[in-house]
């Protein structure tokens, strides 16, 4: 499986290159960080007061976001693959819950959130040194540990989303190594830029922090539209391009083995997203509530948008369409949820439902890549749309980040008459595309050269469950179940 760039992937590489060029000035500007005044110890607020209600909500939100990956995403993706790959696909989510967590403790959290420059944090919090019960500048009413674990849950689900692109064909070992490198080299910098102290795109969301945290290109990303969805979605596209399609793709049917599992997964994603977006308010009050309801309405509208256009175009509203639309709605609202109103959220949901219907059905086939479970089609496209529409539908009265306050701005969205946000959204989006796209490309080519990315033909044929893990998802044979006794399978030894 050599990587021969096809025409569309060539086009994409060119786009990436152009984007890099266009963004160089911003990068240069970013190189001279603003002087900031920090809390005495940089991040921790030693005498900070912990609010038990806020903490309760944030601990709950952490649980909800963990539930999004396991079992949520594991089920959503697991149901969409063929029976022979169900366990391996669920394992991709599950193992990331393990690997990324340990990585986060060792170095990830520090790279994202300890003091650094505009692009990346430092090593101060490596091994979670200095991350204790006192609140931090990031979330001033909850323990620093709570903020750290909440952020970890985001770091887990982001690489897990990419799995959708390389499902049913990537080697387990390569997938783990790719995810680890991806987290350190792409996710941590992105998280730092958007939410970290002085990060390039930090706009000081909802916190009275002084100018310490604001970056040079402040953008609005309430809960991770760029960091989570664009970065994973674009990386997913690159994975699909570099890995190539599944054997038999386009010539043979590859129906989801159990949409039932996927519906369960989608519903859990929806519920968990309340923690993802609502928790991003970092407190339990009006802002959390506002973000949560926008999230809910966008999901609802996304489902309706998708099946509406599907009903029109294909004659029947599908269940897979409804759940895909809901996920698209959740994606699109992620950057905007804390900045916009419920009615705009409905509008954004309807739009993304229609757009992602096309990206997951037509665009993919047009371009010829095999984004197996539409990680790019939903998260990349939906995330990009969300980042941009945030600049359109943001409402200053809902939430005015510190950057706006400082500059005497009271409006945030284009519809209100302020266009500056949209410009920054576009820049931040382009930047994210470049970092995720180029970064992933380099990582993948590297890993491919060293250890290969795909399982071999025989292993793909027999399925990843068997070839990577030596297990089967289902053992429903009468021979096992109708009897306690002999069967077509022999027990040959115990390890």
């Amino acid at each position: 499986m050599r990587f021969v760039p096809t025409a569309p992937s060539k086009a994409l590489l060119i786009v990436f290159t152009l984007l890099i060029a266009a963004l160089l000035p911003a990068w240069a500007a970013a190189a001279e960080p603003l002087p900031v005044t920090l809390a005495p110890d940089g991040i921790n607020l030693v005498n900070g007061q912990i609010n038990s209600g806020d903490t309760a909500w944030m601990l709950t939100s952490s649980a909800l976001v963990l539930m999004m990956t396991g079992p949520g995403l594991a089920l959503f993706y697991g149901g969409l693959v063929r029976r022979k790959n169900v366990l391996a696909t669920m394992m991709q989510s599950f193992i990331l819950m393990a690997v990324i967590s340990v990585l986060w403790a060792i170095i990830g959290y520090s790279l994202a959130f300890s003091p650094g420059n505009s692009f990346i944090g430092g090593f101060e919090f490596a091994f979670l040194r200095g991350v204790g019960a006192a609140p931090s500048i990031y979330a001033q009413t909850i323990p620093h540990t709570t903020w750290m674990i909440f952020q970890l849950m985001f770091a887990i689900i982001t690489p897990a989303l990419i799995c959708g692109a390389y499902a049913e064909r990537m080697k387990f070992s390569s997938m783990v190594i790719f995810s680890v490198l991806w987290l350190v080299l792409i996710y941590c910098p992105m998280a730092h830029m958007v939410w970290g102290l002085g990060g390039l795109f930090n706009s000081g969301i909802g916190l009275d922090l002084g100018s310490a945290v604001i970056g040079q290109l402040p953008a609005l990303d309430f809960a991770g539209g760029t960091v989570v969805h664009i970065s994973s979605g674009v990386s997913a596209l690159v994975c699909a391009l570099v890995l190539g399609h599944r054997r038999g793709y386009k010539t043979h049917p590859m129906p989801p083995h159990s949409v039932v599992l996927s519906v369960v997964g989608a519903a859990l994603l929806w519920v968990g997203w309340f923690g993802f977006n609502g928790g991003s308010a970092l407190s339990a009050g009006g802002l959390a509530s506002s973000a949560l309801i926008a999230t809910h309405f966008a999901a609802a509208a996304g489902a309706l948008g998708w099946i509406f256009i599907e009903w029109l175009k294909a004659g029947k509203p599908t269940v897979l369409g409804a759940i895909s639309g809901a996920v698209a709605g959740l994606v699109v609202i992620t950057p905007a949820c804390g900045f916009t109103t419920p009615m705009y959220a409905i509008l954004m949901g309807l739009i993304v439902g229609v757009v992602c219907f096309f990206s997951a059905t037509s665009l993919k086939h047009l371009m010829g890549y095999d984004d197996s479970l539409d990680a790019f089609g939903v998260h990349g496209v939906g995330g990009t749309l969300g980042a941009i529409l945030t600049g359109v539908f943001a409402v200053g009265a809902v939430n005015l980040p510190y950057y706006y306050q400082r500059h005497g701005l009271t409006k945030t969205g284009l519809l209100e008459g302020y266009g500056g946000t949209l410009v920054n959204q576009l820049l931040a989006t382009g930047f994210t595309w470049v970092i995720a796209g180029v970064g992933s490309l380099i990582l993948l080519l590297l890993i491919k050269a060293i250890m290969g990315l795909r399982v071999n033909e025989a292993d793909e044929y027999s399925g990843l469950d068997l070839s990577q893990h030596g297990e089967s998802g289902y053992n429903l044979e009468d021979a096992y179940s109708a009897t306690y006794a002999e069967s077509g399978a022999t027990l040959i030894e115990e390890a």
Partner: protein
Amino acid sequence: MRMIEAVIQPHRLEAVKSALAKLGILGVTAIECKGFGRQMGHTERYRGAKMDVGFIPKIMLKICVKSADCPAAVAAIVENGRTGQVGDGKLFVSPVEQVVRIRTGETDDAAL
């Protein structure tokens, strides 16, 4: 002895079985199978990928009968398996040389 293999619609199973029982034929083995034939399959769609499922779920019955009982059994199956719609299935009769009841070792007609 004869082996009757009948591919029928799943929802005629009960009627066919009852009719055979009336003839005193109680032993039947049923196998779930997928039939391709004149009856059209259906189409499924997953995220726009249209999939033409060509087969139809059917049940294949295997019934071993004494040669003498064969015509009556065939008639009973045809009559009760019939709905008149395309897809009602087919029935095949072939010779059997030997039958053994595993439990007792009885053979041939005695085993039926």
